[in-house]
């Protein structure tokens, strides 16, 4: 059977980021993958060396629009540890609240996008409508729907008033009920079950060997969660559980993310009800002593690591960012092999790629060297067609 190279260009409507796929397919089965990460590369790490600790935070926040609080928190907590600064408990709790709200909005976003990739647009509309409740809460607390700008070295920039706390608590019951509804839907709905079960399987040993992180790894039974293994912020003071699954396919990842949504609501509610009194910031010194730290954080997509080295001035010497999506790409390359072409959107979406944190993928291989061009739109249409064909059966 002839091998065909299917390049899917960087301009496409499905994923929010520019991605270039070049997949070599043997008929309908995928043979191999490759990587090219340069469409989103901006040079942030170099620019961060020239900005002091106040000016670097807006830049680092904008590494990614979905996990912006993650990048700024992991940097700030690394600098605070080098400076040996202890931030007040109220600041720690508020950072945790914003972190978990960000995780909620990211997982709801992912649920909608994954449903959209299989053609289930109703779920897409529903999850994004419910996500607006989380965005409203974040906007009341911080002033913006994304890029909250709440962190600074030494604590938080804004305090929470009692009315904001009560408004946030009032929104949680409705969200909880909606998420229970989605959990039931994922277990019962034929459309989702057919398209998610058995697709993109990653075994436990492969996940460990290829360095998968986050919900992708936890769905394969790998029990790593930085919030428990290397605790930071308020995670030792709040009761919560790590969610894992054993199936390792897209269905397992969906269940892990929905489980994490429910855990996040519990954490947010606990933190809002038990918010300690006190100041929200301490005065931080302008310069940091010489030091080196590997600061890790559990972003919505997995483990985020900033390697920071300071040199005694008010700027960093080096900040080296390792994003979770980069760690997950090798495993997606693995679980795409021998899958159908029409399943590509689902499998890629299942690791929740945040490509602006990383960059992109080119998939190439061929024995026969014939080329065909397919847009991602056409691929998604194929995937919807497959869904409707399976339903008719």
């Amino acid at each position: 059977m002839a091998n065909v190279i299917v390049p899917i260009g960087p301009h496409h409507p499905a994923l929010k980021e520019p991605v270039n796929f070049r997949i070599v397919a043997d008929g309908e089965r995928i043979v191999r993958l490759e990587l090219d990460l340069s469409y989103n590369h901006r040079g942030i790490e170099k620019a961060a060396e020239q900005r002091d600790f106040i000016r670097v935070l807006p830049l680092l926040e904008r590494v990614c629009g979905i996990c912006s609080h993650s990048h700024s928190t992991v940097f700030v907590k690394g600098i605070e540890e080098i400076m040996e600064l202890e931030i007040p408990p109220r600041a720690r709790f508020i950072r945790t609240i914003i972190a978990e709200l960000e995780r909620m909005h990211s997982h709801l976003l992912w649920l909608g996008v994954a449903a959209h990739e299989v053609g289930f647009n109703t779920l897409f509309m529903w999850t994004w409508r419910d996500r607006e409740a989380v965005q409203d809460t974040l906007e009341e607390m911080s002033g913006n729907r994304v890029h909250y700008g709440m962190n600074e070295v030494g604590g938080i920039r804004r305090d929470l008033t009692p009315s904001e706390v009560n408004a946030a608590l009032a929104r949680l019951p409705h969200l909880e009920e909606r998420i229970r509804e989605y959990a039931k839907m994922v277990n019962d709905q034929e459309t989702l079950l057919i398209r998610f079960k058995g697709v993109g399987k990653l075994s436990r040993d492969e996940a460990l060997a290829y360095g998968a992180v986050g919900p992708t790894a936890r769905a394969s039974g790998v029990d790593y969660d930085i919030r428990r293994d290397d605790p930071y912020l308020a995670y030792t003071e709040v009761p919560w559980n790590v969610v894992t699954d054993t199936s390792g396919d897209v269905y397992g990842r969906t269940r892990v993310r929905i489980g994490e949504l429910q855990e996040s609501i519990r954490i947010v509610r606990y933190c809002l009800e038990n918010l300690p009194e006190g100041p929200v910031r301490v005065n931080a010194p302008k310069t940091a002593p010489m030091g080196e730290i590997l600061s890790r954080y559990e972003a919505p997509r997995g483990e985020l690591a900033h390697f920071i080295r300071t040199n005694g001035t008010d700027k960093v010497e080096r900040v080296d960012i390792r994003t979770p999506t980069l760690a997950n790409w090798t495993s997606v390359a693995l679980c795409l092999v021998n899958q159908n072409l029409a399943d590509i959107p689902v499998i890629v979406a299942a690791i929740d790629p945040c490509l602006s944190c990383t960059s992109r993928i080119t998939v190439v291989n061929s024995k026969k060297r014939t080329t065909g061009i397919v847009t991602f739109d056409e691929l998604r249409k194929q995937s919807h067609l497959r869904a409707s064909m399976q339903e008719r059966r």
Partner: protein
Amino acid sequence: MKPLLTRDFVAETMKEWGTAEQVRHNRIRITATPETVRTAITNARELLECDRLITISAVDNGKTLELVYHLTGPHRSVISIAIELPRDKPEVPTMSDLLPPAGIYERQIHDLLGIVFLGHPDLKRIMLNEDWPLEEYPLRKDWKKDPGTFYGGIPGERI
């Protein structure tokens, strides 16, 4: 979950390949050399049970280039193995056959800092665009953009 590794245990196990110090309650830093780093990592995988690579960080500290490999395992401690490379000939053997994720990180570091990983199967462009001139490594401290060179964008038009 297993207990964290202690500094003495790590120092004793790895004493042929580097010196160990405890930099944080769960992180131990080993200073090795480019010749011994491959055996150090193999032995860390077997003797210290470090089966995951977190990341490979690369730093240009003005005088030399440094590489730090961060490993972790079921004991949840982080073992950082640090080496230094000379600026004019930064070469080190690749780890991509021992730890599969290392392949991507090494390509990234090669693109941005110019460290050559000997034996890497596919060391080509990953982060910079295809028009970026060869031998220009943006993350080095002494690199500045040259106004006469074309770095990418629309050819023939002023950037």
